[in-house]
């Protein structure tokens, strides 16, 4: 198993000033650029440490929010491509739905892949709903635009003999010729996220790495949809390395200390949900069926425990988050057992996206969390033999 260290690079100093929204309409005067600079340097120091400790690295991008200062992920990727030595660099996600210019995307990502000497993982996503009002891209038809941008980027990265032409419904270029071209051939691995069976099948057919976020013990059905589609297309079951899962991690020498850290890192969940309601559902983002359900007042719960209870992540405590498989928390033995239990339940999961820092968690706590995990848990996870999906009862 690979383990990616992830932080959203938050700016928690502004969180207490929110008037019901940390996103879209929180005035940026609440950010002190000097403090932001210090935080950025600290987060990069922690990623450099993660690189030394044997982790891989994940970063992401959000817009107009105090929850994530990475508003242009290419900046973080560029710094880490040069400053790190060995870690893979996963961007998850790179929001194609908000990008008007996929040529620029291909150029940025290819350059990062070259500078990092082939360590880039490209996680393409459509983007979260409340950022469509910010980017002003249209959420109606976004998946068609997403796949068109994806197709273009893949072709741009894998065409080498002459400039090519691209005149689709969404994007128009006449002389596409990527300099530099990517280091990895034919292109860096493609990842994406999903919460829906339909998208799981699409990703399975393409054989891309599929990550789920916040799905807990409701993950298995999505993985199984992927497996079915992968099997039908490729004639063999997908390896565990096709699956990734975002888990919050808090590890310490004692259970009590781990739970203290667990509470700090799980602030990610309620803080992420603090969004002015009028920005949460731009037209076209959700299906008509989902919108009918919302109008009727029946939103669909997403996160389940192993025994079928549904947990509200915004209000859940540490124990509930452990039960639901969102938070892996405890002593090294406990954390290892929780992760392995989750992998077994999933029928194999080869990439743990470890949120080892969140909110106002201190540098010292973050370093301790990463260091202990790398010493006591990571080696065992690297040696862990993934189950074969068919042998595991769903």
């Amino acid at each position, binding site marked *: 198993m690979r383990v990616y260290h992830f932080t959203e690079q938050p700016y928690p100093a502004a969180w207490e000033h929110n008037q019901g929204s940390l996103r879209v309409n929180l005035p940026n005067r609440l950010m002190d650029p000097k403090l932001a600079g210090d935080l950025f340097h600290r987060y990069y120091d922690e990623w450099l440490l993660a690189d030394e400790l044997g982790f891989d690295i994940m970063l992401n991008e959000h817009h107009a929010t105090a929850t994530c200062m990475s508003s242009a992920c290419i900046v973080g990727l560029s710094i880490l491509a040069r400053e790190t030595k060995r870690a893979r660099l996963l961007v998850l996600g790179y929001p194609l739905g908000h990008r008007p210019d996929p040529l620029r995307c291909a150029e940025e990502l290819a350059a990062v892949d070259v500078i990092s000497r082939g360590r880039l993982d490209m996680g393409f996503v459509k983007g979260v709903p409340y950022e469509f009002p910010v980017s002003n*891209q*249209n959420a109606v038809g976004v998946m068609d635009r997403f796949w068109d941008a994806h197709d273009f980027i893949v072709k741009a990265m894998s065409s080498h003999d002459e400039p090519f032409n691209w005149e689709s419904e969404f994007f128009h270029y006449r002389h596409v010729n990527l300099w530099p071209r990517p280091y990895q051939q034919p292109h860096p691995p493609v990842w994406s996220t999903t919460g829906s069976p339909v998208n799981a099948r699409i990703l399975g057919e393409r054989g891309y790495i599929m990550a789920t976020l916040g799905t807990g013990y409701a993950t298995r059905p999505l993985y199984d949809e992927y497996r079915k589609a992968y099997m039908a297309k490729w004639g063999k079951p997908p390896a565990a390395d096709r699956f990734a899962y975002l888990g919050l991690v808090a590890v310490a020498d004692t259970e009590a200390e781990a739970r203290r850290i667990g509470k700090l890192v799980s602030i990610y969940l309620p803080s992420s949900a603090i969004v002015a309601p*009028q920005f949460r559902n731009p*037209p076209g983002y959700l299906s*008509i069926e989902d919108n009918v359900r919302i*109008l*009727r007042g029946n939103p669909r719960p997403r996160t389940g425990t192993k025994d079928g209870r549904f947990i509200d992540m915004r209000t859940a405590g540490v124990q509930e988050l452990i039960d639901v498989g969102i938070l892996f928390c405890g002593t090294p033995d406990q954390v290892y057992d929780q992760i392995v239990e989750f992998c077994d339940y999933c029928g194999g999961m080869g990439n743990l996206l470890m949120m080892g820092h969140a909110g106002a968690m201190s540098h010292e706590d973050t370093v301790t969390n990463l260091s202990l995990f790398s010493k006591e848990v990571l080696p065992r996870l690297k040696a862990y033999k993934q189950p074969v999906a068919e042998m595991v009862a769903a």
Partner: protein
Amino acid sequence: MPNPAVARASRAGGPLVVGGLRVELIERGEGRPLLFLHPGIGIDAKAPVLDRLAAKAHLIAPSHPGFGASGIVPSITTVDDLAYFYLDLMDDLDLREAIVVGVGLGAWIAAATAVKSTARISHLVMANGIGIKVGDRETRDIVDVFALLEPDFNKLAYFDPKAGERDYKNLPDDEVTAAARNRESLGRFAWQPYMHDPKLKGRLHRIRIPTLFLWGTHDRILSEGYGRAYCAAIPGARFEPIEKAGHFPHLEQPQMFADRVLAFAGL
């Protein structure tokens, strides 16, 4: 006796199909054709204004592509596409001397249609229309309705906000589905550029048929100044306020609305 206005339509009692797209249609009354183009919230067959218009005209009130129960095809993504769709619809139904009445989004579609051809249109009525840019680049002419929850939208859009309330928990499935489709389709056509076509204002001079602007004076989605500027861009267009109505004067003052439309068309 068959209505001459629909002589060429080959529906034979079946649904209206235009350009391969199945159109949900309310059709009532006898006389000159009156094509009613609904606003972004869609059309309710029970709205009193429809019978009042149909009392003296042949009312043809389609749901726009993607709205209500009308189909949608991938090639229709802009209000310009909708304008060509309505030119086709008027051809297919062989409408002559039609009175075209649009409210809100419907008025934008009506204007976008009329700048292309008024060959089948005798009168144009624009009620609380959107579709053009009036202010400078840092002035949002039209309130961002996509950044409003429905109760807040109702407060700005109606003279009496209660008029906009809908009990989605208890409405029939088809009405809730239509509401969801209406919102998605409004986003399809009006998300960016927001609620307008930057080219439209410069083309309005091409409309040289009698044009009436009706304006619900309690509209706080659009200002009356916006409406008057829009009106001034169409040669000879007349502007008539309607009191005690907001963005949807056809819903809040149906009799007044129908009376003004029919009188303007000489009916």
